[in-house]
């Protein structure tokens, strides 16, 4: 029971990570893949922050009387990671918009079909 209480946090985080991973791997609409990537990244943030929490601690802002502070280092790393994640998401969305303008669709299977049709059509004129 102690083991379960100490670890269920991590198991739920692994479940959320695998949800995001499945969306990235199996769906073909590119915006949905980006949303799945966001879910994956956010679950990694939850994992890090739950590593730094101390039971009975408080937020790492110094006060006068001596209390137990939770770990500030994990917060610092995740602050950086959140902003880098939004930067990559924005760049990914810009690429998706350009792909849509080039191919007329953002579904990966349809783009595959268009590319294969062009490949078959190209060697013919000699």
């Amino acid at each position, binding site marked *: 029971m102690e083991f379960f209480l*100490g*670890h269920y*946090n*991590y198991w*739920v985080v692994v*479940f959320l*990570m695998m*949800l*995001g*991973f*499945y969306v990235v*791997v*199996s769906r*073909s609409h590119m*915006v*949905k893949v*980006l*949303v799945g990537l*966001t*879910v994956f990244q*956010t679950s990694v*943030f*939850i994992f890090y*922050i*739950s*590593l*730094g*929490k*101390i*039971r009975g*601690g*408080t*937020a*790492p802002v*110094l006060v006068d009387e001596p209390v*137990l*502070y*939770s*770990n500030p280092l994990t*917060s*610092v790393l995740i*602050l*950086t990671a*959140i*902003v880098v994640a*939004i*930067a990559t*998401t*924005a*760049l990914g*969305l*810009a690429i998706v*918009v*350009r792909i*849509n303008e080039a*191919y007329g*669709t*953002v579904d990966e299977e349809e783009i595959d079909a*268009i590319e294969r049709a062009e490949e078959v*059509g190209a060697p013919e004129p000699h």
Partner: protein
Amino acid sequence: MTDLVDVALLALLALTGISLLVLRNLFAVVILSGIYSLLSAGLFVTMDAPDVAFTESAVGVGVATVLMLGALTLVGHEEKKPTRTRILPLAVVVVTGAVLIYGTLDLPPFGDPGNPIHQHVVPRYLEQMPEEIEVDNVVSAVLASYRGYDTMGETTVIFTAGLGVLLLLSGIRRRSRGKEGAAE
């Protein structure tokens, strides 16, 4: 009591993730991802990380949702029904999840003050910060002063991403290849 809040928030997160996977109307999927970010911000508050909760709610709920909705109005917002069966992705995901859970069995228990992560550098920061920097918010002090190089790199990454988006999206639109190919 906080354990109960943690369990409730994690359960809601799992429910939101599952419905995000299943739905095919992408406007709903984007709003659900905003809800996901908001719930994780609540989780960050109960885990004593208010700076991270601030950033996640401002970035994940505000900026990311608006950008994705803007992109969806440009590309179209319905996802096609799946044509093939998906055994291989499901198998890969299940195997990866099993390996990760096997890895978490070795992790130290949640919330224990004796964990290795609290032992080496962090006590030095917490003790010597009042003499060296004298700023009340330890996270700001570590971010701006003790780990200033990382923050400079991060600022440069944000600048590069903005530059990339501007290079991609501020030119003139050309005719799409699909329409040209069909006309030939």
